[in-house]
């Protein structure tokens, strides 16, 4: 589904991703962990070209992202992304947040888009907020709307960049619950998170990143109970 080969990313002089090689299969849930500044967000953002790729290749669903012939907007529509800061559109209602890309990108008519959006809102438990503006929602509700908005594009992959890090602790659960449900439905997911419980319970595989490298990857049980690498051990001893 996703194949990353020798991915490098530099910001000016700063080399943030040094040599990333990752294969992600369909329906797999991959959890990315690692210290702050290790390049997790940048890695995720290279997967839908919100950051340009300096070197190497990323292939998603058979398409090479850096290929000049690839329609980048079309590709992004296939790759959903959920941000730490939600990034809902504040001038649009909850419903409009979800229908806007369906109508502009997928060219759905308004009625069908609204019907589908209501289904998605029901899925994340927020039908009653359809007419509300994002500012009136709690963090957990905002993030669930953001997930529904991404799902409206019927993406093949969902990327989550610390989706619960900006939330009050009592709201983390409701968002993780939605993500867990998605995973159970067979969505291919790449999740950057500090929620080790989620990684253990929902993750098929955990990738540990440090200083721009993938240091270690394994199934959750093995990596948490028996980390091979010294840096993984050091990191896990701090967060577990």
């Amino acid at each position, binding site marked *: 589904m996703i194949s990353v080969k020798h991915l490098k990313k530099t910001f000016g002089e700063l080399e943030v991703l040094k040599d990333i090689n990752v294969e992600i299969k369909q329906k797999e849930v991959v959890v990315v962990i690692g210290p702050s500044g290790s390049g997790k967000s940048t890695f995720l953002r290279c997967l839908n070209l919100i950051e340009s790729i300096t070197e190497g290749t990323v292939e998603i669903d058979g398409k090479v992202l850096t290929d000049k012939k690839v329609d980048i907007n079309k590709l992004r529509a296939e790759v959903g992304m959920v941000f730490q*800061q939600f*990034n809902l559109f504040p001038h649009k209602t909850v419903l409009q947040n979800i229908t806007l890309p369906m109508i502009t990108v997928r060219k759905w008519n308004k009625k069908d888009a609204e019907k589908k959006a209501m289904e998605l809102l029901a899925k994340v438990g927020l039908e009653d907020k359809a007419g509300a503006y994002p500012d009136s929602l709690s963090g957990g509700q905002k993030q669930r709307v953001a997930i529904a908005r991404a799902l409206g594009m019927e993406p093949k992959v969902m990327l989550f960049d610390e989706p619960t890090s900006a939330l009050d602790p009592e709201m983390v659960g409701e968002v993780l619950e939605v993500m867990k449900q998605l995973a159970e439905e067979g969505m291919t997911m790449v999740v950057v998170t500090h929620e080790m419980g989620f990684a253990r319970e929902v993750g098929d595989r955990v990738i540990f990143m440090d200083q721009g490298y993938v240091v270690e990857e394994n199934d959750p049980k093995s990596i948490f109970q028996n980390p091979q690498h010294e840096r993984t051990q050091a990191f896990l001893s701090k967060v577990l």
Partner: protein
Amino acid sequence: MDFRFDIIAEYMPFFLEGMLLTIVMSVVGVLVGCVLGFFIALGKMSKHAIIRIPFVWYINFLRGTPLLVQLFLFHYAVLPTVLGDTTAVTSVLVTLSLNSSAYVAEIFRAGLQSIDKGQAEAAHSLGMNKFQVMRYVLLPQAFKRSIPPLGNEFIVLLKDSSLGAMIAAPELLYWGRAAAGQYYRVWEPYLTVAVAYLILTLSLTYLLNYLERRFDVK
């Protein structure tokens, strides 16, 4: 001191006509300024220096030189050269439009750049193209934030349109000067003109406050 209301009464039709022209010139100026200013703002935000630099200097020139100098330049030099001929009103309209376009461009640019980067990122991540991101996500938010400074610009323009009197455009101040010239009186005409401007700017302020409240969805 005797205050000759009869002069004001006699000139009232002209003052009203002048007021109308003042309103028309500043409304046209701000509207054309908004349209031009929008494209100038986009030009100034271009990634390519070759595109950006002309817009930077356009703005520098219009914001960095006195409006009266611009008015003289357009009325006596630029427009006669370009059009072969010009009228005072045409010159004022062109000068006000171009001058306000520079200020409006900066207002729009500041508005656009004040929008959180996450907005464009989220929109792009959903597959929206550059135009759609601009049209549906960034501009509506930037426009809303631009309303208060645009209102200020409108008020400034309305007052600055009085410079048209210097090239005999028959706006409000022009008729004040005409009355002063005819009767050798200064208090009556200039006070009247001042009050007329005050009525215009205060009405505009109230109108703008109302609009600001209307556009605030929260």
